[in-house]
């Protein structure tokens, strides 16, 4: 390796830096730092002029490391890396020092100290730069096909979206028909239509699409690989087939809780809302007079603290329908809070009230009581508003229960190496910023398997996931910033600590194939899976695994430089 020849470029940033920090003094200081062969000030290093100054200096001084002290790498790093690359220097031989956000802008009243700090930050950057190494980015092709797991509305929307963009889609549904949970419903809230009207066209479109290969009934048995290159094995009618895809969308939905409360399952006039819809759909409900519905059954309790979001609307929908079927019926909805957000839902609720549905608020500490030995005869409830207990005659009790995660989520999560959150639903990469991606590249999530979602939301999420998934498919290749981990197989002892801490399952213990180490069990990093967090590098007891761009040598050199050690 050639001796380091470091060039340092200090940006005035107009007066942003230069108005506070004594830039010429920092330049003079930088010139005396070890391995620095050139240092200069620029009015704006990021300007065309600044960029060409870097390129020229690389040639003139035969620089093999470049340090720019200016603003934040979070915005400007790509620009300077490209400048280096244009001048024939590997872009990873560039180091950024932030003397604006982290110095001049926050120490405007102490020019002396700000200058001293800028000098020290430059010293640290130079110390790191001395140990930078040229890196190659990992690039791998993306197999132009997608898999969508789950044939509900979310999954079908995603599949259709991708297929219409021209990508081959494998849609895997475990039931013998498409449509998911929607098929079990009687009506859909706010539009009050039968679900068939919605689903049928979608199902037909899916079934008739030349780009969609339907696997049904089928389940995913195993999966391996990484973005662009997944191998998924599916069990289709007892036959195992292997499918190669570049991206995967998880849209497996959720299920309705069957409660062990309010004599459900013991007395035959107690139903869940879904059970009620099933009977309505099948025309088997029969006569009824007084209907009581209880909301939040098994939800928003310590063992299941979340709100399932859909059950209030479902209860309102069915309460109104009961009133419609039998206007003489007394229909009560006992609720804790009503989640009828937005104009559309609020209006739906108002209409139900107008139709004569009565709403009574109960509290968790004082839940309704069911009366009756063989059948429910009445429900006693403490009405908070009236501050008294009322007894409601009842010959049909309907319980609104929350959506709960599918039992096989955990299995699927292990297979795909995507996380499950606290409640058992799948966990997206970021709650706000990355709502339909998993932290694992190339795998996306949509619909109620992530969190209870209504039809509109499920479809929107299906489209969103498809659009995210289309990016790598369209690009045809993925590049990974060269900050991924590397293993020194000579010193690796195969203890597996890195394997345990890696959040992306990017590291595996394998027999080494390197000459002289054949058969030794060592860690191996899959660069396509590695996201460059460096957890492994911090956990490895003898530092056999390192994160490129953030090696021990580089970080320790910065610490030493800051402490006045060379």
């Amino acid at each position, binding site marked *: 390796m050639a001796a380091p020849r470091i060039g340092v470029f200090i940006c005035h940033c107009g007066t942003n830096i230069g108005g506070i920090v004594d830039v010429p003094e920092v330049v003079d200081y930088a010139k005396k730092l070890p391995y620095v062969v050139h240092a200069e000030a620029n009015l704006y290093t990021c300007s065309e002029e600044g960029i060409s100054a870097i390129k020229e200096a690389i040639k003139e001084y035969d620089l093999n490391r470049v340090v720019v002290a200016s603003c934040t790498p979070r915005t400007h790093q790509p620009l300077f890396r490209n400048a280096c690359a244009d001048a024939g220097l590997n872009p990873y031989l560039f180091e950024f020092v932030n003397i604006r956000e*982290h110095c001049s802008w926050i120490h405007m009243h102490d020019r002396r100290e700000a200058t001293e700090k800028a000098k020290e930050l430059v010293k640290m950057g130079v110390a790191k730069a001395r140990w930078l190494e040229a890196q190659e980015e990992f690039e791998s092709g993306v197999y132009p096909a997608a898999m969508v797991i789950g044939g509900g509305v979310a999954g079908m929307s995603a599949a259709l979206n991708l297929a219409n963009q021209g990508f081959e889609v494998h849609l895997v549904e475990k039931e013998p028909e498409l449509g998911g949970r929607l098929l079990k419903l009687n009506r859909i809230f706010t539009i009050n239509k039968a679900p068939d009207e919605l689903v049928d066209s979608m199902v037909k479109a899916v079934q008739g699409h030349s780009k969609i290969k339907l696997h049904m009934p089928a389940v995913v048995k195993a999966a391996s690989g990484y973005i662009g290159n997944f191998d998924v094995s599916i069990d289709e009618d007892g036959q195992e087939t292997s499918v190669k895809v570049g991206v995967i969308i998880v849209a497996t939905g959720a299920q309705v809780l069957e409660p062990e409360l309010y004599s459900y399952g013991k007395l035959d006039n107690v139903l869940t809302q879904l059970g009620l819809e099933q009977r309505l759909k099948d025309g088997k409900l029969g006569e009824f007079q007084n209907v009581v519905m209880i909301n939040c059954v098994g939800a928003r309790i310590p063992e299941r603290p979340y709100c399932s979001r859909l059950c209030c609307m479902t209860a309102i929908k069915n309460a109104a329908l009961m009133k419609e079927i039998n206007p003489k019926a007394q229909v009560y909805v006992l609720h804790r809070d009503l989640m009828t957000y937005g104009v559309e839902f609020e209006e739906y609720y108002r209409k139900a009230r107008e139709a004569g549905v009565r709403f009574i608020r109960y509290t968790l500490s004082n839940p309704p009581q069911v009366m009756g030995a063989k059948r429910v005869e009445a429900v006693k409830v403490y009405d908070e508003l009236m501050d008294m207990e009322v007894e409601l005659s009842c010959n049909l009790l309907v319980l609104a229960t929350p959506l709960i995660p599918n039992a096989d989520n955990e299995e699927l999560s292990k297979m795909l190496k995507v996380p499950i959150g606290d409640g058992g639903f799948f966990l997206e990469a*970021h*709650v706000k910023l990355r709502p339909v991606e998993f932290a694992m590249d190339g795998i996306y999530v949509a619909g109620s398997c992530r969190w209870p979602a209504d039809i509109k939301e499920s479809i929107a999420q299906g489209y969103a996931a498809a659009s995210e998934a289309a990016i790598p498919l369209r690009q045809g290749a993925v590049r990974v910033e060269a900050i991924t981990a590397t293993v020194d197989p000579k010193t690796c002892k195969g203890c597996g600590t890195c394997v345990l801490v890696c959040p992306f399952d990017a590291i595996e213990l394998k027999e080494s194939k390197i000459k002289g180490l054949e058969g030794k069990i060592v860690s191996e990093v899959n660069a396509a899976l590695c996201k460059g967090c460096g957890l492994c590098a911090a956990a490895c007891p003898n530092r056999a695994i390192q994160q490129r761009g953030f090696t021990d040598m580089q970080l*320790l050199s910065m610490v030493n430089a800051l*402490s006045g050690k060379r």
Partner: protein
Amino acid sequence: MPDIKEVQTEFKPKILAFCCNWCAYAGADLAGVSRFQMPTNVRVIRVMCSGRVPPELVIRALANGLDGVMILGCHPGDCHYSEGNYLTRRRAHVLKRLLSYIGIEPERFQLRWVSAAEGAKFSAVVKEATDKITALGPNRWVDKK
């Protein structure tokens, strides 16, 4: 009249902060963009995740004579790598106790959560650390040299 000879040079602690790229470093950037003024004592080293900072590096920094070391990462649950900061948190609990056990004041090593939106918190953390460590005086480790 105070004896002028007794007046010593003011102690200006030198504090190192490892900031994760996604939250704390961005928070520090935001503090800059917002022009929140703060003490000049803290120097930032950018890492991709707070979980990249091994205890060895903290120990080495303190042994080198730095007066304080901070690791600033995403709030629990917000880690860009989903769980890096949880591992950092476990290690930090153990390290903090170990350092305190050998007589290094706990204030000299801190783990704090700073999100990308918390420019004000970043500046508060810097100020607080500077004040506390100034009050403690120079790192005891230096006396050992």
